[in-house]
């Protein structure tokens, strides 16, 4: 009984060392230890949820952002059959999403704009489904900068929003007609 207990503790000790090593290395997986040990730790870490980088609001907090899209309706000759529709995702644009049930859309938007392929292969086809009859959708990642603290303190009489700049980043389009895109993510 005592031997079995000791064996149990020895096995648990091995797991303790392995788990702590994994939790220390995974958030910095691109570093030396991560590169050299990834094949031993990632299958485990990715299965139990240790595959997170714990970088909340860092290295620098994000600016206000959203996706602007235009849905187009064209005939086979390229003539407009219907007025294009402009929209934003999340629909609140540069305001916060207050609805608790739709707050996850803000997170979905941030996920999509990280990689242009995600806009083209995930978000675009979804938009096509939201607008039946559309022939294509154009999407762009818009960032409204938060003016610096020094700027808002110096220019006290200006509204914070007036000091903000609108910048366009990734621009992608997806065709809503024809076969699905075979491009991998």
């Amino acid at each position, binding site marked *: 009984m005592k031997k079995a207990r000791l064996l*149990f503790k020895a096995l648990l000790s091995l797991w303790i060392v392995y788990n702590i090593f994994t939790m220390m290395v995974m958030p910095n997986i691109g570093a030396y230890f991560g590169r050299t040990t990834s094949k031993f730790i990632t299958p485990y870490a990715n299965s139990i949820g240790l595959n997170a980088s714990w970088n909340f609001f860092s290295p620098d907090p994000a600016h206000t952002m959203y996706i602007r899209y235009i849905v187009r309706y064209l005939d086979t000759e390229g003539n407009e059959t219907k007025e294009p529709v402009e929209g934003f995702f999340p629909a609140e644009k540069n305001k*916060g999403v207050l609805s608790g049930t739709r707050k996850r859309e803000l997170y979905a938007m941030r996920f999509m704009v990280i990689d242009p392929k995600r806009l083209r292969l995930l978000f675009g086809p979804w938009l096509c489904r939201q607008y039946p009859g559309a022939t294509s959708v154009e999407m762009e990642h818009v960032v409204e900068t938060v003016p610096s603290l020094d700027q808002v303190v110096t220019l006290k009489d200006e509204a914070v929003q007036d000091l903000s700049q609108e910048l366009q980043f990734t621009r992608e389009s997806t065709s809503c007609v024809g076969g699905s895109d075979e491009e991998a993510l």
Partner: protein
Amino acid sequence: MKKVWQKWDQFWFGPQNLLGLAFMRVLLCGTMFYMYLGRLSNLEYYTDNSWISKAMALEVMQDLYRPLFLWCFWPDSWNLFMHILLVVLLGVLTLGLGGRWIMWLAWVIDVGFIQRNYAVNFGADIIAALFLFYMSFTQSCERLSLLNLLRKRRDFKGADTLSSVMIRMMQVQICVIYAYTGWEKLKGGSWWDGTALWSVMANPQMTTMDFSFLRAIPWVIPVVAYLTILFEVYFPVMVAWPKTRNIWLLMGVLFHAGIGIFMGLAPFATTMVSTYFLFWDPRVLEQKVVSAFARGTGPV
């Protein structure tokens, strides 16, 4: 060598009081119950009509972060049933009814939903699931259980080896999370500059009210930003040292209360704070909280 083993044995396998763990269970499972009750109206996010089809659920994750398999073993058509089951299990666990297997089942379903659409996860989803995993190996329902109240139970088991190990592991885990959040901030120029917090508070997508009045008292921004970094980076050391533990935990409660109220991230705040019960002296919890409650209702 023998001394080292004794210290290791004492630290990891020494008996732990299960009361702190039970408080953590109530707050963590209660938070998840609330979060996922609300998510019942978002179940279309977890179907092929959403952004990510089931076939692409793994593909959308970066190579190094991609699991070998999906925990969501059920078809999307079962989502409503599985999600209701998850909410019921979390409700049951909040009340202290259940045990390791029920919590493990809750964890599998929870991770299944997290992996099914990785794009819509909150930080609270990820952290809560991780702690639910560790907790599923413990006797978390031994204390603060509705059954104890009904049966008027007065004697409680001590922690077994596995529970003791997992309590320690959760303490280590939360320290690692805080330390990394602090270290990651140190990579950012605006955190060094002291103005990062302004970018958060002036961003209407991140706050629940207008904070532009802070431009009239700008010195508050760097003070709170530097305090945030100090709190996070030094959390492991300060909670390990008994003399600074309570003040650091109190700072953490205030810090997360601010995040919860002013940034609308209450589930994240309560998830993080739930782990603090693992650091608080169980005798204090026993005397100040449980005894006071028991005088009115009976033992819990």
